[in-house]
Structures are given as structure tokens and as C-alpha cells.
């Protein structure tokens, strides 16, 4: 940098560097911290990841994240390698219905009961928008709550 240009350069350096730093403080720290504060104070359930608990109070994960059910007594999620997120917690109504005979077989819960359970826990539609789906963890937690004997093993797992 030639000597005579230095003052001009300095003149520009102040707003340029200053603006970069101030924007960092406002956008990178002030804003997210403000939102965190408000969210934690007013909506801790959502802000902390929609945590799911067993009836006995044990934290088992998030309603929004697939809980990796593998056993036949539970509703199971899709093959996660075929989903975009790898943690898709939901299944379609036909996918859920297709699992009813198997769960019924293993648990003895009647197919009608299971089909009713599916029907009354559809999510994802509102007004004309969306098409229905089911949250696997939610379905299974309801089963555990309604049939503690059948699912005793998992509750006792604590």
C-alpha cells in the first residue's frame, strides 16, 4: 500500500471492520440469545426439543425424532435409510394399518382397537392442508400407557 493512500485506506477501514464486528454482535449474539431467553422462559417444552417421557417419567427421546423401534409389539418407523432426515418419526396411515395384524398377533390387542387407535391419533391435517400421518413414538407411548401389563418389560426397564 503506497504511503499516500494510507489515510484513505484507514478512513474506509473503520466503517468496514467496525460494521463487520457490530453486525456480528447484533445478528450472531444478541438475536439468538434473545430468542433463546424468550423461548426458554415461555415455551420450554418446544424449546427443548419436544421431549417424550414414559408413564414412569423416564425420558425416552423426542416426539420429533424416530425412537428406533425394532420389536414386533410396537409400531415401527420406515426404513430410515430411505428417508431424507434419517430420523423420520412418522408413518402414513396405510403403513400403520399394515402393522396392525402383526402387533395384534404379538400383543393380543384386538385389531379393531389398534385401528381405532390409529384413527384417533392422525396428525398433520388442518383445514384443506396436509395429508394425515402418525407419529410412531406417540402411538407406542399410548399403547404402553393403555396396556401397562403387555408392555411391562419396557416400563420396568428404568
Amino acid at each position, binding site marked *: 500500500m503506497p504511503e499516500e493512500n494510507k489515510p484513505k485506506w484507514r478512513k474506509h477501514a473503520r466503517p468496514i471492520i467496525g460494521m463487520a464486528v457490530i453486525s456480528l454482535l447484533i445478528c450472531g449474539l444478541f*438475536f439468538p440469545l434473545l430468542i433463546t431467553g424468550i423461548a426458554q422462559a415461555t415455551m420450554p417444552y418446544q424449546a427443548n*426439543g419436544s*421431549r417424550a417421557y414414559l408413564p414412569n417419567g423416564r425420558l425416552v427421546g423426542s416426539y420429533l425424532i424416530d425412537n428406533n423401534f425394532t420389536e414386533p409389539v410396537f409400531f415401527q418407523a420406515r426404513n430410515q435409510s430411505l428417508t*431424507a432426515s434419517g430420523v423420520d418419526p412418522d408413518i402414513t396411515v396405510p403403513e400403520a394399518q399394515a402393522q396392525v395384524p402383526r402387533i395384534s398377533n404379538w400383543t393380543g390387542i384386538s385389531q379393531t382397537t389398534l385401528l381405532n387407535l390409529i384413527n384417533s391419533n392422525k396428525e398433520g391435517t388442518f383445514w*384443506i392442508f396436509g*395429508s394425515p400421518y402418525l407419529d410412531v413414538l406417540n402411538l407406542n407411548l399410548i399403547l404402553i400407557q393403555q396396556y401397562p401389563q403387555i408392555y411391562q418389560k419396557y416400563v420396568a426397564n428404568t
Partner: protein
Amino acid sequence: MISPLEIAELVLLLAVVLLTAWLYAPFIVKVFKRTPSRVDKLLNPIENSIYKLLGIQVDRSMGWKEYFFSALLVNIAQMAIAFVILTEQGLLPLNPMHFHGMSWDLALNTVVSFATNTNLQHYAGEMTLSYFSQMTAIQFLQFTSAATGLCCGVAMVRGFILQSKGLGNFYVDFVRAITRIFIPICFVAAIILVALGVPQTLSGYITVQTVEGATQQVLVGPVASLVSIMQVGTNGGGYYGANSAYPLQNPSPITDLVQIFLMLLIPTALCFIFGDYIGKKKESLPIIVGAYALFAIDLGIAFIPNPVTVGPGLETRFGGFMSTFWTVVTTAVTTGSVNASLSGIHPLAILAAFMGMLIQSTPGGKGVGLMYLLMYIIITIFIVGLMSGRTPEYLGIKIVARDVKLVMVAFLIHPLIIIIPTVIAYASGAAAAIGMGPNSLGFTQILYEYTSSAANNGSDFLGTLGNTPFFNVSTAIVIFLGRYGPIMCLLALSGSMLGRKRATATESSLKTSSWTFSLVLVASILVLVVLTFFPFLALGPILAYFQGHLNFFSLGLWV
């Protein structure tokens, strides 16, 4: 084709977007015209202390060169800060998962990508970045790049105003864009997103035992604040690698629609500000018609095939319809966020996505989309306007050889930085090295990578596969040129309009605020932009479609 109900959903959502944007547009104009407002009481002291601290003369309007270079240099300074934060995050606070610093090439790619509003991500945030990095590198750049784009768009508009003395003061525009537009909208958006289930916490990832007893980590963090600016600012870079397909970033169809709305809001509002800003309200017509007609064409192409209910690469809660819709929107406004894996999207929807990224103004990224539309208007006026028997003029300004030169250079940048790197990626073996074979599916992904980079869109097929020195560096170069090249040309164009003789529209001038012109504009954009890339699109998504592919999972062969 999609069902009438789905069409109704589309129309309804777009109608809400258009209405809100139309109502919001005058506010944007007021912010940049520095019209006194009720929020002055609160914000003026803060803003003025910033100006004072940095020695900024608020009322000094800049010429195009000073405006552009101020923007560029501030962006570079921000990149430098973010680069240090990313590479040194191991030494910085708020790193509960103890992530290491990024490699230099990935960090370079990331800062260039985020500072330019591109948000191409060759990393998965949840596995790579500390909370501090997500906030002070990613979110920070998402705000500033959005504000920079918006400022440049407004600066370009100012050149067209009668008796305008300059393009405005970049620093003042930049500060006001952040304090009065982005922070307030993002604040509301972030709170809504939290309410709808998006986490916002600084405590570390939650390790749990699943119902069946396996160990699982729930990857929470300051997500909602990031998602708000990533969509509002049409950035697109997600908190998670899977972006808005990840349930914690986009938990339900409602959050999906909210995010689509947020993406479209400011770009659409900017279509309305032009006429308002220059004092000729009707002149917004070709801009809004141009943007939304092309957007509608994109949607039409994407929905030729009936979207699947759910399939590989898609999330159950969104299904084929919402995933396809999102894909078109995210490329139409050059956001680049995704709510599905692009590999799960039908080739024709990918073709529509290409169109959005090649046109860049359907309605395009904030600021930049408007700039491109003005560029298209000028080139269209020049080519077809002659047919009205007059020397082409826009808003009474005669379009001279120098204007045409700048527009053509801006025009030329895109083919150059998309086609040449694509060829090099194949010729050098870099594409083959990451498994992108010489077939329609592989070719689509490489072409998409550079198109997305050039358009500063950021959506990509490659994801972490692209984390190789070749792709990191080459896309960084493409992103940089694709951002600053056209902005420089178009600001120069606008700057040259200042003080130029202009006619008040007479009976005998071409009416650019007419439907006739608006439709001709749409046709000429299709012919000049989309057709130019036709041979390449023919080898990619079009070929994939004719080969019968329904998504990009199957192995495609040339023969």
C-alpha cells in the same frame, strides 16, 4: 397432475403471500427512504450511535463504485471473522459437543457460501458445528448476506429514480435493513417456529435411552433463530445437514407452510417496491407478473408427474406434494433449503428447480432477484422494444450501448461459471471420484451443484459428498463470481442512470407497465435464459425423465 385440492392449497398459499407482501412492501420503501416512523424512537438512538461510532455520514449518498466496494469489503471482513470462528471453534465457547475446527477448504467454502447468501453446505451442521459457530458464523452471515443483497437491490432501484443523486449510503442501508426489516420479521418468525416445535436452547445434545433401551442423542440447539433468518433471508443453509427435512428444524406440515411463506415473503414484497420507490406504481406490474408467471411455469412443470404420497428420500409428514412444492419454491427464491432429499424428487421437478436457479428471479433472492428482473426488463426492452419503432428506453431513459454491454456481461457470467466448471469436474475426474458417473443422474447432480452455486441458491444433491478440496474450492469460486459479478455490473448500470437525461413518458413511448410487455418479458426470459441451457438440461433432468427415472436413487446409464 396434482389434485384440485392441492391446486387450491397452492393458490391459497400464494395468494396469502402476495397479499402480505403487497401490504408489507410500502414499509420496506419507508425503511430505505428513511421516512420517519413510529419505531424511530426506539431504533434511532441505537442506529445513530453505530453511525457515530463508525464515523458514517448518514446523508452522504454513494456512487455505484463506492456502494459496491463498501458492500464487498464489509462482506469480506465478515467472511474473515467467520472463517476464524469456524476453523478455531475448538478454542471458542458454547461448544458442548467439543467439535474440532473446520478444515481450511471447507471453512473457505462455508464462509464464501454463507456470506454470499448461497448456503451451499458441504458439512452437516449437527455433526460439525458448535453452538457458537452456528450463531456467530452461520446465523451472523445469514443476516448480513440477506441485508447486503437487499441493500444492493434497493441501491439499483435508486438509480432509476428521477433526480436521484446517488445510490444511497451502504452502511446506513445495511444497518436499517438489519434493525428494521430482518430482526423484527425474524423475531416474530422465530417465536412462531418455537411455538410450533422448533427447539431453541443452548444446553447440549440430550442423550437418552429409547423405549427399547438403545442409546440415542436428541440434537437440539439454537435452531429456531437460525431457521427464521435462513428462510426470511432466502439463505437456505440449515442447522442440520438434512436441512428442513430434519424433524427438529421442520416438525410438521404447518411449520413447512410457515417456512415456505417466510421464503417467499421478502422477495415477493420486493417485486412491489419498485414502482412505489420510483414513484410510478404501475411499473411494478412487469416485475410481479414476470416473477410469478415464471414461478407458475416452474410449478406447472414440476407437477406434470403426479407427486408420490411418500417415497424414498421424502419425509412422511410432507409427502411428494409438499416436497415438490418446496423444491420449486426454494429454487424460485434461491433459498436452497430442502425438506426432502433432492434424490427423491422427480426429474421434472428438478428441471423446474433448474429453471428457477437459471432465471434467478422467480421472484429470486432478496434484492438480487429484483436486480435480475430489472436486467431482463432492460434486455427485453432492447431486443423487442425496437419493434415499436423507437430507440429503446426504460422509464424514459434511453438504453445505450454501454448499458447493453453491462447487461450482456452480467448475462454471460452465468453460462461461464456453470458450464466450464461442470466440464472440468468431469474432465478432471473429480466427479467420478465422488461417484457421480457419466449418466443422466450423475450429470444432473454435478450440473446442479454449479448451477446452485452460481445462482447463490445453495441446495445441492451432494451434501457432505461434496466435501473434497476440488468441490469446496471450485464452488467457492463460482459462488463468489456468481454473487459479486452480476451485482457489480448491475450496480454500474444503475449508477450510470444517475443524472442521465430522461424523458417523461409520452404517448409515443413503449409502455413497460402493460400486460403486453409483461408477457413478452416472460417469453423472452424463457428464450434467452432457459433455452440457452437447453442442451445441458437435455443431458441431465430431461434425459433422466425420458429414461423413465422417478427419482435420483436408481443408477442411471447413458444407454
